[in-house]
């Protein structure tokens, strides 16, 4: 549904996109994960016909983005980082204006506006001016506006940035619902849990190019997958023997004090381990199976953390945000 090849974009000194490739299948939620300045917004802007790349090509729904931007615009819905709603208009008027811009008939526009107001729980606020709305409500109208023309592809650029936790959860539900309806969505986020929770496929992006791609599980596997962490007074060799084929063939166990850590197969559970250790009579005080977080993935791949600090800067990354 979305294909991009070798996208390059430079802003002065900053190389915002450095040969980005991506492919999103129909009906998929594709998560683009990266810190501020990684090039996520630039990529979305190129695909949404807002920005001309220096190099590369892209197609959406079989249409060439660079050659036929007008046909692309008839197929996409875009919600940027800042709610692009007209504050002077009511929620309903905002939807109706977009309907008219999409050349729907007056009646179609009206029906669609009502439908979306209801689905987005905005019916009560429908005829109030947007100026007084909360951040979460604005974001909902913003997304509703992007859906008026029933787009083939939806772009959501950091849809939860700046939202309170409750609105954030509501947004997650909304994206999940859209996916159930078959919407192809390209989602950018700097939150690992968000990408993990919503996306079928995740691309980790840093300095304008993809550094890893796969499902959340596959990405975690890349960094070494699951590990058994066993706290015991028994010698390491005995523990390794007891764990047996639950451990990966070439796994090297680490010992740190009374804690032994061994790489195990992804399907291994804590009860499996306990049973084996118990059979061999190994005294244990604690057994856990840990899977790496996406932050571990990010750290392994880039050498710096992905999580954003409270002040909005990214640890270990000094690039300015490119928006």
């Amino acid at each position, binding site marked *: 549904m979305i294909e991009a090849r070798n996208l390059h974009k430079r802003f002065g000194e900053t190389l915002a996109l450095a040969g980005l490739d991506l492919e999103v299948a129909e009906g998929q939620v594709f998560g683009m994960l990266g810190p501020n300045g990684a090039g996520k917004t630039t990529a979305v802007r190129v695909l949404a016909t807002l920005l001309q790349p220096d190099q590369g090509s892209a197609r959406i729904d079989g249409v060439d983005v660079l050659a036929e931007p007008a046909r692309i615009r008839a197929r996409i819905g875009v919600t940027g980082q800042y709610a*692009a709603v*007209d504050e002077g208009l009511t929620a309903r008027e905002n939807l109706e204006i977009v309907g008219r811009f999409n050349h729907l008939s007056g009646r179609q526009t009206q029906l669609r506006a009502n439908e979306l107001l209801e689905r987005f729980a905005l019916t009560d606020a429908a005829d109030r001016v947007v100026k007084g709305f909360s951040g979460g409500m604005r974001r909902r109208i913003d997304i509703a506006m992007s859906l008026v023309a029933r787009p083939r592809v939806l772009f959501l650029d950091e849809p939860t940035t700046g939202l309170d936790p409750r609105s954030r959860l509501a947004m997650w539900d909304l994206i999940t619902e859209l996916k159930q309806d078959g919407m192809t969505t390209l989602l950018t986020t700097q939150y690992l849990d968000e990408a993990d929770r919503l996306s079928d496929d995740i691309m980790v992006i840093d300095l304008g190019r993809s550094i890893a791609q796969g499902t959340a599980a596959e990405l975690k596997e890349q960094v070494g997958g699951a590990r058994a962490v066993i706290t015991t007074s028994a010698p390491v060799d005995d523990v390794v023997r007891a764990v047996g084929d639950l451990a990966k063939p070439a796994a090297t166990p680490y010992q740190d004090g009374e804690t032994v850590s061994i790489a195990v197969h992804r399907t291994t559970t804590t009860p499996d381990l306990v049973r084996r250790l118990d059979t061999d009579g190994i005294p244990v005080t604690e057994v856990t199976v840990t899977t790496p977080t996406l932050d571990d993935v990010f750290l392994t791949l880039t050498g710096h953390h992905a999580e954003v600090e409270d002040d909005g800067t990214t640890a270990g990354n000094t690039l300015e945000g490119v928006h």
Partner: protein
Amino acid sequence: MTTLAGESATAATPDDERYEPKTGPLWALRDSWTEAVRHLRIIPRNVELIMFATLQPIMFVLLFNYVFGGAIAGVENYTQFLLPGVFAQTVLFGSAFTGIGLATDMEKGYVDRLRTLPISQSAVLTGRTLSDFIRNLITFTVMIVVGFLIGFRFEGGIADGLLACLLLLAFSYAFSWIQALIGLSVKSVEAANSAGFIWMFPLTFVSSAFVPTESMPSWLQPIADANPFTKVTNAARALYGGLPAGDDVWISMLWAIGITVVFSFLAVRKFTGSVAR
């Protein structure tokens, strides 16, 4: 209840005509009107806006007339002399809203939304200048009414009076396009505000709008005489006053058309060209 994305999200094929943009001059006109309606709709519900939009021109008319009126010698009927200048300046200043409005929409990300809609791209600008024209028309009407209350008349007859009004509005519309280009070129609303107004002060004051140019220092006088704003003020003054207008009417009309053509071209090119900001 239908689903969020609609049944079409999966049922539609790439060839579905719904996903083919409707283009052509008629759709472009409709898009412009939709964009104009977006701006005009807020006018009736914004009481403050109406108040200031009408109070300011009223204040201008009254202040200039009663404060400076008596002090400026050499003009017989100062009300009849002054008001065309006040009208001209006020409608010209009204054009600054175009740049400020565009800069605001850009800052808030609304322009990005418009750009991703299947509309004629130039409609974003034509719609904006159209709504500002209508807003200016409202302001202008208020001023004319106040003018009539304090003794201003269409002494040259209704037709010439209306022609003068049209000329001033055309001039203001032309300047909307200069302001549009400014609004698209600056990086913030504040910059659009100052960059939009600052040059209009010398333009309107170094002219025949408030005082006869003969009263200016000799080095300034030729500048004032050549100023297109002098031309349009003189043309309006002659038409309102029933005096011979000479070449001023068609010269100022040419200015209005020329500015509109050149700056609408530049502004649309700026808008549809480089999108990076």
